């Protein structure tokens, strides 16, 4: 079966029903190992035990941007090829991405208080992530409140592509402006600045969070396909009743 064949909702449903239990099991196993490694990682020499917040804050931050990336690719599929599965993928990714962005903001705030002495500052990194969270809410509002789902989807896809401009701003905000938020310490020229005893649990948790994202995303896509079937059947029912 070619990959393009999976872009058919019925075939996609068959695949998801087969893959989802495995994805969920792998996610649980990765979290079990990742959490044990994270909670037993040594304290940071400056931050002490609060460095443990990093094991959830950083993966959530990565996934908040990855979620927008998934939505952007899906938005292209919706606007350029008008593919129904692309629209399903975009709509299903929005609440998952918004949830991870919310986790990123709250855990960052809880990490900031003991580390910086404040829950919040209007610096470029924090503000650009807050803007992304508000954009997620805007996209969700368009998907969930539009009377005509087709128009709502196209409007959400346009907003998603406009919002994609914010992704490089988030990534490079710590380099372009003087921020309280620290600069990149993992993906940077010259390699990671984090000690391996903390870096490996972080990477493990990042993989676990990524599996969690795709498990929830695929499950939400399955729900959305079923919801569209229900809508289509109700329209048929109404047409028959009128005839």
């Amino acid at each position: 079966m070619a990959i393009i064949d999976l872009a058919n909702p019925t075939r996609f449903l068959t695949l998801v029903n087969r893959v989802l239990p495995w994805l969920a099991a792998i996610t649980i196993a990765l979290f079990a190992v990742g959490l044990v490694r994270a909670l037993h990682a040594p304290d940071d020499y400056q931050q002490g035990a609060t460095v443990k917040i990093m094991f959830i804050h950083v993966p959530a931050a990565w996934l908040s941007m990855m979620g927008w990336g998934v939505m952007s690719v899906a938005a292209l599929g919706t606007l350029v090829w008008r593919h129904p599965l692309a629209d399903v993928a975009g709509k299903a990714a929005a609440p998952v991405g918004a949830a991870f962005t919310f986790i990123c903001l709250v855990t960052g705030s809880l990490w900031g208080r003991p580390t910086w002495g404040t829950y919040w500052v209007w610096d470029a990194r924090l503000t650009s992530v807050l803007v992304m969270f508000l954009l997620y809410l805007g996209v969700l509002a368009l998907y969930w409140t539009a009377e005509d789902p087709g128009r709502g989807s196209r409007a959400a896809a346009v907003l998603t592509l406009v919002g994609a401009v914010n992704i490089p701003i988030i990534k490079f905000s710590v380099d372009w402006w003087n921020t309280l938020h620290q600069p990149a310490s993992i993906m940077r020229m010259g390699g990671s600045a984090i000690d391996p005893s903390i870096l490996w649990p972080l990477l493990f948790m990042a993989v676990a969070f990524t599996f969690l994202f795709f498990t929830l995303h695929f499950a939400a896509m399955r729900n959305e396909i079923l919801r569209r079937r229900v809508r289509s059947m109700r329209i048929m029912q109404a047409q028959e009743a009128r005839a």
Partner: protein
Amino acid sequence: MNLGPHADFIVAAYAVTVFVVAGLAAWVVLDYSAQRRILGDLEERGVTRRSQRKDDQ
């Protein structure tokens, strides 16, 4: 495990994460069973999709 003087912040961060992820997972699971139930009801009443009718012909 000693979480130090800022244990409240660490516990709160993990608690919020568990709460949000559990809420999201519960929403996805409940939504799935709701959609399956509605689809089952419609099929029981003999309602079919247009694509299903094409397959039957």
